[in-house]
């Protein structure tokens, strides 16, 4: 089941890995992958299983194969920290991925822009495309609808029998959509929606509108 939503007359399709395809532009939006996090931890003496580092690339491959987008735009925090050997894996992935890749830099992206440019990735502080504003940190700007990340949003649901679950989600308010964190081994932050907010949760390989 494919779920999509219309924002300012444009169509956006959800993917349960945590990505969003802008159909008209064939642009895949992905936020907060935090590549290199596993290696970073290992470098500092915490033995996180290294196969977990591979998982991000597998997920990226799956979503790219599914949508076959013209462009992939990462909304920040693509890399968790300083350069480490996971960069090599990333380079390989970029080389074999036919889509054009761009990055809106986030607070974790401290790797030199030249490094990205050397593999053909352009970096932007922010991007304005038509009346859409693409940033890492959530922003409000009159006349624009904002796509962003940074928060790693999740929400809590409750039901009869004192049931509660917490799930990562796409969090849409009137002029903004916050994307969930794409990466494995990233946490999340619970938001409390207002009545007018629209929530799309990720549940066991499905995106569901609440």
């Amino acid at each position, binding site marked *: 089941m494919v779920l999509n939503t219309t924002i300012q007359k444009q169509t956006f399709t959800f993917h349960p890995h945590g990505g969003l395809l802008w159909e008209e532009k064939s642009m895949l939006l992905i936020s907060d992958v935090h590549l290199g996090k596993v*290696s*970073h*931890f*290992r*470098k*500092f*003496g*915490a*033995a*996180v*299983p*290294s*196969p*977990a580092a591979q*998982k991000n690339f597998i997920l990226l491959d799956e979503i790219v194969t599914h949508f076959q987008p013209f462009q992939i735009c990462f909304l920040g925090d693509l890399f*968790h*920290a300083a350069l*480490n*050997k*996971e960069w*090599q*894996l990333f380079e390989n992935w970029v080389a074999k991925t036919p889509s054009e890749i761009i990055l809106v830099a986030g607070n*974790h992206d401290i790797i030199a822009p030249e490094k990205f440019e050397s593999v053909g990735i352009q970096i932007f502080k922010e991007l304005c495309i038509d009346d859409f504003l693409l940033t890492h940190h959530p922003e409000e700007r009159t006349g624009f609808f904002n796509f962003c990340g940074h928060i790693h949003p999740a*929400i*809590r*649901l*409750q*039901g*009869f*029998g*004192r*049931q*509660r*679950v917490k*799930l990562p989600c796409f969090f849409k308010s009137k002029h903004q959509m916050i994307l969930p964190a794409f990466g*494995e*081994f*990233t*946490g999340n932050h619970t938001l*409390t*929606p*207002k*009545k007018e907010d629209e*929530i799309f*949760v990720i*549940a*066991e390989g*499905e995106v*569901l509108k*609440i």
Partner: protein
Amino acid sequence: MDRNELFEIANSWFLEQDWTPHAFQKETWNAFLGGKHGLLNAPTGSGKTYALWFPIVLHYIRTHPEYKSRHTKGLKAIWITPLRALSQEIKQSAERIVADLELPMTVGIRTGDTSAKERSRQKNTMPDLLITTPESLQLLLSSKGYDKIFKNCSAIVVDEWHELLGTKRGVQMELALSRLKTVCPNLCIWGISATIGNLEQARQVLLGPTSKAYQDSVLVKAKLNKKITVKSVIPKEMETFPWRGHLGLRLLHEVVPIINNSKTTLLFTNTRGQCEIWFQKILEKHPEYAGIMAMHHGSVAKETRLWVEQAIRNETLSAVVCTSSLDLGVDFAPVETVVQIGGPKGVARFLQRAGRSGHQPGKESVIHFLPTHAMELIEASAMQKAVRNAEVEDRIPYLNSFDVLLQYLTTLAVSDGFYPEEIFPEIKQTFCYQALSEAQWQWLLNFLVIGSQSLKTYDEYKKVEVESDGRFKVNNRGIAMRHRFQIGTIVGDASIAVRYQKGGYIGSIEEYFISKLTPGDVFTFAGRNLEFIRVKGMQAHVRNSTKRTNKVPSWMGGRLSFSAQMSELLRQELYTAELEPSKQSEEIKALAPMFAKQREESIVPKPNEFLIETFKTRDGYHHIFYPFEGRGVHEAMSSLLSYRISLLTPITCSLAYNDYGFELLSDKPIDIQNVLDNNLFTTAYMLSDLQKSLNSNEMARRKFRDIAVISGMVFTGYPDKGIKMKHLQSSSQLLFDVFKDFEPDNLLYQQAYTETFEHQLEEGRLRMALERIAEQHIQWKQCEKPTPFSFPIITDRLREKLSNEKLADRIKRMTKILTK
């Protein structure tokens, strides 16, 4: 000097104080000077410190006949205390002996509170007698050249060993001792323990089951026949006494005459939150107590705590509301009466608290038990019997705690490095790791050096390195520094210091509570009403407020389970409800109105009956089972049963349990007849079903939290230093998932499951409980509304979850939680 002459020194000192040494003290001196190791079983306030300080000092006199003119500097004895708060007291008693016997010995303290300056001074010249905590001892092992510090140490005493046994700090102690045995050739090892069920085992764990030290050791028991009187506070109006609750404020007025009739009264509460509330409420109702009543719990600033302790000794306070922070150590002679508010969940702890009162020889200890809800009166009555028969629980020691071992090995690698072939036999001698296999040992070494079990090319894992001579060593300063900060096995939520804006420190609160406050909110803490201003770094700024509030910080604390013996007593007590009043205790008699209410909807079970109640409320469908086996068994049984039910039909339920029974709460009714027809209480396949049930709920996941921190996988930052290591922070929950997906054979991941089994779920008792249920008549009562028995359980908010339904299906029945 021979032993008699030495004893003469001790005897005459006692005589000067107008004391006579107890038999157990003499026995301990004798054993110690005879070169024995041992465990001394003596209660707090019985003179146990003198039982061991004296032989330590006498041993020094014996080996240094010219001690008055010639003194060799350096560490001679270590005294381990689990609570830093106690160190001052222990120091004073040591100093008293040293001064009176005109010995040139110095006494020093080294804990987390010791200043950096003092610590480095100690590094140069260690005090002769050192008082420290298990964590600080580990820190000494992480410093370069530690073997020289300990070389001439001749004695180590582990005080309050019962508090450490059955915790990972105890394991830490076992490991430190295994090293010290090698480093200090003439070490004499002694433990001091209050009465617990497994004293013999306690000695074995302390000394190592296969060690020479254990063969050459004694168990000394202090036979002090102290009379303990337990009095239950019985509510006068039972009809209106609540069926649930944990505060007990309803009986506040009953406490007032108790306080007034006694010189000093200690009121023990079970949580710090409860302590705050009681303090507040007593003052509200009885402002005349202002100035003569105080509060004492672990999060109150140290200065305040010390002041309170001193004030108790000076007899300037008539009441102190406290938590387990006053359980141990410190001797308070003026305390006449103790009040226990709410069930103490353990006979040993209850006895220890009772022993806080009536210290003068010949006086009896009086403890009042104040129930917080009706069912606790049954507990009160059972507790009296338990005290009479001294039915004290066991403290179960840990086995194969890989997390603590990894921490310890890193500690050694940080200081001087270690050679596996030297350390392995030492570790094998400990109780905890007696069954450690060569394969597991190799796994642990691999984990430290390559962070996995196979080498990968792009891997940059860095922690312990193997040097050319085979020594395992940490050479990276950052790793060493982070490790030193992490040493310690007590894991809590990150705590935030609470300060006035101008800087006065009030205490610490869990981050979780602060995160729920917005500026301007008023909360009660350390007996004050405080307005929250902001969080800055790892500090919360506050100012005094006159606004009234009912916000009280809560601290997560472990909940203890009843022992098998205590559960048995509880059942026996409950069964008397069906007897004629003349055969009932006062407490059970007082409960008559509640039992009547219970019989309206359901029954009070007889010995051969197993009660199941079902009813619906707006919360959902409640299914309640009453085995009366204690919390731990109920936790396991609820997990097992809900798993077995989920095999019959897809279901989502939340589980709650207390010492009386457990509940499965679901959004759909469970067919109990189906449960009975399928014989879901069978012991067949119990273990494998239980194991599988753990995969579908969160118990092991929660256990993993401590394991991840202790083993150094999760870095908590340095909260009190204000240093945040954001880029290295991850949650143990995330890590648990990563292990589950990528490395399920990881020993640390597996340890989470083993610990849940052995330490929490008490597999053996579960089997016996199921066998008992098989012989009972099942009484299934379909009720219209909640019964008095069910009330404390269904209102419990701390719950486990179990679900095997499709998430999407569940979500369709749920709604989002909106801002109000």
